[in-house]
């Protein structure tokens, strides 16, 4: 440039500078702020609003209603109108609000090797690659997703496969139910989804299935099963539950008859049952580890209740067991009545060539150029034998969409932050195929993308997830889309039923298609999803980490479960580190001796040993995936266990599981249920030197049905979310300082067929003669006029005399600064402020706290009632624990009015109070457990435990 004078140069420099500054202008333009002229409807400052949405339960939809305060989601409740919820949620849904605000969530796109990367960079790069792939019909482009039950996403995937036929779509879900669909194919010749109606059943036989715990429909099954198990002295009728199981489960805990056997032995037992039911030909007399008498009794019971029985096999059992169960249910006329069939809910379920193993093979073979992984973490969850991580490292171009920059993100070329389920649009099908919409409650905090957004990009579409969703549902809506859409969002269920039921019959010649039962000799190895963090995707959620696992009470870790004899044979006790080896691989983990676990079998829990989960999830427990193989993902034979001689510290919330003959949980056999009423509720004598409390209009009380409780501990975490209960971490729990206001006690008693497991949720008893009140020197523990035993935090100086004197030990103390205000130690565990319930005080260090019967909900109902000038109606106050309970085991209300639901329960002959002889007169009472054993004498034998 010869003729560039000084002036021109400066002009150009100035222009360059201003242009360069433009892309940085991302701040909102300054606008005038004006108050609302007309207030938008339903937006009252300080009043929470509620929206229906859907959260994933291992891929299946569960309908939820999310409460937001000033635009911040703070609490998740179940959606009573949604079939996958019926008003309940699982613990993971309760913890979703914590996950939403998790500061460890991925916040920006990450490009391997680049210091900074933006979504625009990604889009530019992707466009170039996509053009190349499109020219070749999509060849070299691969997609990896989890189980997809979203109809809109499936539509986009199908569209992509139409426009680019060579695109390959792989599915990898660590908890995939492949055996279920394989079993259906074996029986019916086609993959079907099987769902159950326990409410219509009089007899249920579980073959190692956790009907009320982990099946996709468990929330509904628990409600339905329990509805048939509420006998009263006036109406003593109750369904009967037989459970054969390998590792102790919640279903086994509530069973009337339970027998432990190895998962590998279930097939043999299923065959024996099939022979008795005439499904398989006679003549087979295999050696099975269950008494003939047991099977005969169960079979007679099932035959006596044709069409009102269920045989339910566990998801992890081999296809042959599922096929036999189908045949038996059909023979018993259960199919179509209590056992229903649908098309598979996850798209492409059960297809065998779209697995992670085949993807890895293609990657090695070099036929994969671009891999897009949506919402999965295969580097962590892949079976150890396929070497996925190595193949991914070799891959030139990979894209990972995830909530966290996890193990897979670290090995991918691109990582994109995913929008949380509470931040984006979408849809999901429930376990029974019912679709419902996912609606955002808040704009993405970190600008994440929904899976639908990425699919739109792959399809070259410019629409948002919302647009694609409406585009999919518009044709299903009929003429009036607006009202269809509005109804779907308001009710939380899409009104159009697009997922039909199918009628299938078992194809002839099943016995020829079944494999011969093989012997099981060496140590059996089982893999189970962790009850709280599931496959590991919830690992960075402190509420879930600190939620005691059902039956174990273990927190912040996973363990290796072994039966008492197996443990004794290897000379190990609780907390011993053992080495488990299988197929040339080994892991080390701590043992928990689980009475009731099948001998000769050990159970590993998935979901731990994470390295890139976040500050909460890293480094807890051992990684069971390291032993898992793609061929035997659930049950493997021929493992070896050896003690290492070292020990690990395990934090468990309960140290003693025996009842010490103190009968905290009363139980009666069904035919003796009348005796319970005669025994009385243990209310104690009623004389007292102190004057009674002055009563007011409402007298609150609670009743808990122990025959309904399934021990899932959803109440514990729901209470935590509602009441701003802090997380204290593993060390503090190990020292006995967990803060949960409602705990679920777990007791075991007896052995053999007489072995019983009990659950007992224990909130504050709200005693009328409360031992905590009279010992408090500052009157911080006081009684209110509605019968609540309240704790005045401001007045509490922390003498802890109240806790010492509480016979139920339900009080919790802020030993340290658990909310992380002062020190760094608890800061990483502290719940982010936006999640906190503004109606509940956050307690400071040195203050005692406990269950308040959700007094803030009582106040809210009182205000509403006063506005309308009417009394508070029964059922208007629902405590957090009551609302979430899948088994509907908790009732709360005014006990001074005999017509309320809680009063009716308290009038039941099963009603009793805990430690009644102390004359504390608790407001919380229990309905006794009832056992419905088969009268045709079972139980005198007892090799199994």
């Amino acid at each position: 440039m010869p003729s560039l004078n000084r002036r021109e140069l400066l002009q150009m420099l100035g222009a360059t500078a201003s242009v360069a500054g433009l892309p940085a202008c991302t701040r909102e333009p300054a606008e005038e702020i004006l108050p609302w002229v007309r207030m938008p409807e339903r937006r009252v400052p300080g009043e929470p609003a509620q929206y229906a949405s859907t959260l994933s339960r291992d891929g299946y939809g569960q309908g939820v209603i999310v409460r937001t305060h000033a635009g911040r989601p703070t609490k998740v409740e179940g959606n009573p109108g949604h079939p996958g919820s019926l008003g309940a949620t699982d613990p993971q849904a309760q913890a979703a609000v914590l996950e939403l605000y998790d500061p460890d969530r991925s916040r920006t796109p990450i490009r391997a090797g680049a210091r900074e990367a933006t979504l625009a960079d990604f889009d530019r790069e992707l466009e170039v690659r996509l053009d190349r792939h499109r020219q070749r019909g999509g060849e070299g482009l691969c997609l990896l997703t989890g189980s997809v039950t979203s109809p809109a996403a499936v539509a986009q995937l199908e569209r992509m496969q139409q426009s680019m036929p060579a695109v390959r779509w792989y599915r990898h879900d660590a908890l995939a139910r492949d055996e279920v669909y394989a079993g259906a194919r074996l029986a019916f010749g086609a993959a079907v989804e099987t769902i159950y109606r326990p409410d219509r059943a009089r007899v249920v036989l579980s073959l190692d299935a956790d009907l009320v715990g982990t099946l996709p429909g468990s929330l509904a099954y628990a409600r339905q099963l329990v509805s048939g198990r509420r006998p009263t002295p006036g109406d003593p009728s109750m369904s009967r539950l037989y459970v054969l199981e390998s590792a102790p489960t919640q279903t086994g805990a509530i069973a009337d008859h339970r027998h432990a056997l190895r998962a590998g032995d279930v097939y043999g037992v299923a065959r024996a049952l099939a022979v008795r039911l005439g499904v398989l030909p006679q003549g087979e007399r295999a050696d099975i580890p269950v008494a003939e008498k047991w099977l005969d009794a169960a079979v007679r019971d099932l035959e006596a209740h044709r069409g009102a029985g269920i045989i339910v096999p566990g998801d992890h059992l081999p296809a042959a067991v599922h096929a036999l169960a189908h045949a038996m249910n059909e023979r018993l006329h259960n199919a179509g009545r209590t056992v229903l069939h649908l098309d598979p809910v996850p798209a492409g379920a059960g297809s065998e060539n779209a697995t992670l193993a085949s993807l890895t093979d293609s990657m090695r073979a070099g036929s994969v150029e671009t891999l897009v992984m949506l919402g999965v973490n295969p580097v962590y969850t892949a079976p150890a034998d396929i070497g996925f991580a190595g193949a991914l490292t070799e891959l030139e171009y990979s894209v990972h969409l995830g909530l966290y920059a996890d193990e897979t993100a670290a090995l991918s070329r691109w990582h994109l932050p995913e929008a949380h389920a509470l931040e984006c649009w979408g849809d999901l099908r429930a376990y029974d195929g019912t679709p419902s919409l996912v609606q955002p409650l808040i704009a993405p905090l970190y600008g994440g993308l929904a899976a639908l957004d990425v699919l739109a990009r792959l399809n070259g579409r410019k629409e948002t997830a919302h647009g694609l969703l409406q585009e999919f549902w518009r044709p299903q809506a009929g003429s009036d889309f607006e009202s269809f859409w509005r109804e779907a969002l308001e009710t939380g269920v899409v009104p159009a039923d697009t997922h039909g039921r199918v009628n299938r019959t078992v194809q002839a010649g099943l016995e020829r298609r079944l494999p011969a039962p093989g012997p099981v000799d060496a140590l059996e190895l089982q893999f189970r999803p962790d009850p709280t963090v599931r496959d590991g995707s919830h690992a960075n959620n402190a509420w879930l980490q600190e939620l005691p696992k059902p039956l174990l009470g273990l927190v912040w870790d996973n363990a290796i479960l072994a039966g008492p004899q197996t443990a004794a044979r290897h000379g190990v006790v609780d907390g011993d580190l053992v080495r488990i080896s299988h197929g040339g691989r080994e892991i080390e983990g701590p043992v928990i001796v689980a009475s009731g676990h099948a001998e000769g079998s050990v159970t590993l829990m998935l979901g731990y040993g994470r390295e890139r989960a976040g500050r909460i999830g890293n480094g807890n427990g051992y990684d069971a995936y390291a032993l898992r193989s793609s061929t035997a993902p659930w049950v493997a034979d021929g493992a070896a266990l050896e003690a290492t001689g070292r020990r690990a510290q395990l934090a468990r919330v309960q140290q003693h599981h025996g009842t010490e003959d103190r009968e905290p949980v009363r139980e009666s056999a069904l035919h003796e249920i009348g005796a319970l009423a005669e025994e009385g509720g243990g209310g104690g004598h009623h004389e007292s030197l102190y004057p009674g409390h002055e009563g007011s209009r409402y007298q609150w009380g609670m009743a808990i049905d122990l025959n309904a409780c399934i021990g899932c501990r959803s109440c514990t975490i729901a209470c935590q979310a509602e009441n701003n209960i802090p997380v204290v971490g593993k060390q503090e729990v190990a020292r006995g300082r967990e803060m949960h206001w409602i705990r679920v006690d777990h007791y075991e008693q007896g052995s053999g067929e007489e072995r019983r497991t009990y659950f007992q949720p224990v909130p504050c008893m709200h005693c009328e003669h409360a031992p905590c009140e009279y010992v408090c020197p500052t009157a911080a523990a006081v009684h209110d006029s509605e019968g609540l035993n309240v704790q005045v935090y401001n007045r509490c100086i922390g003498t802890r005399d109240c806790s010492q004197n509480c016979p139920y030990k339900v009080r919790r103390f802020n030993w340290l600064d658990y909310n992380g205000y002062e020190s760094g130690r608890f800061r990483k565990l502290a719940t982010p402020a936006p999640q906190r319930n503004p109606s509940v005080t956050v307690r400071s260090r040195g203050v005692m706290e406990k269950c308040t019967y959700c007094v803030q909900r009582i106040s809210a109902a009182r205000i509403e009632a006063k506005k309308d000038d009417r009394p508070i109606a029964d059922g208007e106050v629902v405590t957090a624990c009551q609302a979430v309970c899948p088994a509907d085991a908790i009732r709360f209300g005014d006990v001074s009015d005999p017509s309320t639901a809680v009063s009716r329960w308290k009038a039941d002959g099963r009603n009793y109070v805990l430690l009644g002889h102390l004359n504390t007169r608790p407001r919380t009472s229990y309905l006794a457990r009832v056992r419905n054993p088969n009268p045709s004498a079972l139980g005198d034998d007892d090799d199994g435990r």
Partner: protein
Amino acid sequence: MAAERPADRIPVLEPGQTYASVTDHMSALVLRGPTRRGLVALFLLFTALAILFGYAVIAVFARGVGLLGVNIPVAWGWPIVNVVWWIGIGHAGTLISAVLLLLRQRWRTSINRFAEAMTIFAAGIAALFPFVHLGRPWLFYYLVPYPDTMGLWPQWRSALVWDFFAIATYILVSILFWYQGLVPDLATLRDRAVSPLRQRVYGFLALGWRGSARHWEHYETNYLLLAVLATPLVVSVHSVISLDFAATIVPGYHSTIFPPYFVAGALLSGFCMVVTLAVPLRGLFGLEDFITLRHFDRMAKLMLASGFFVIYSYAVEFFFAWYSGDEFHRYVQINRLFGPYAPAFWAMLTGNVLVLQALWWRRVRRSLPLLFTVAVIINVAMWLERYVIVITSTHRDFLPSMWDSASATGWDAALLIGSLGLFCFLMALFIRFLPLISIYEMRELVREREAEP
């Protein structure tokens, strides 16, 4: 030697002591001070431990009681054990000063001064532990009935409120009693001090004491009145503290024997502490003529007597556990015998029951090394007794699901050891600046002896 003479033949003041020698000896300890290097080193050690105590207290205040070995169900831990133990130690002082004064037991004279000092320091340290125990110690004044705008008062049904008053009263009366006893001696020190600073300080503290007959008359009357006032406190403090436990419904706490049981235990530990202090003091400061074997013999007998009431209480606890038929109560006792804290229980029993019996032998009562050993062992056992009561009762109470143990932390140990250090530190200062044996009362003894035929 002394051991061959019958007890009552050993004088409470060895012959050869005169007014002058007594006064010289005692005031010299204060006015000339210790010159031995060992004593200075010992003092530095006590100072270090006292600083450790201060550090631990500040840490617990700043970071929370969670530093200590407490949890649910064991929400009361070592601080409560220490309160009860230290208050117990502080018990013997008043008994020796007030009750023995009223009973005209002249042998109390040579031990009452440092026993009273011991009482005040022990009770003061005991009074610090509730602060360490509280979740929000800065709000302790909620226990005080002060007029507040909300109309809030302490909750009078709570034994903790009574406790607060009992300890506060005890400390106040003990200080008054001690100080009054000091007044004539302070005047002696004032008169003998050489340095002007000391003259002024002692002079100020002596309240203008001139030793006139009128002074003495008022003095003696008031001293007796205070003694009468203090006497019920011997019983009240520890029995009120025991109500913190007895008035609950916790099996193992809820027991009517607790008030007398605690008083007896307090006396036992108090006498043990007096012996534990008297033996080294006697040797270090050449007090053989003033604290004689007769004193030790008497105190050993008192230990035996109060010890037997303690043993009786143990027996009653077990008897009533059985007799009540209450399964929870029974279990607590069985759990003490065989549960996770059984070693503490058996160690306590060994000390308080077995080792105590050694005092039946005169040879033991008059052998300082043996008596000292017995006293120290019983002191430890008495600490364990409170530990067993406080910890084992709630660690396995009503619902087996909440059974859990709590284990002490380094902070607990620092507080206990530090409090012992603080106690020794305060005792050392007391010995250095005030006469550890009442000079004027020793002079009275001299006179009495001279009056004897």
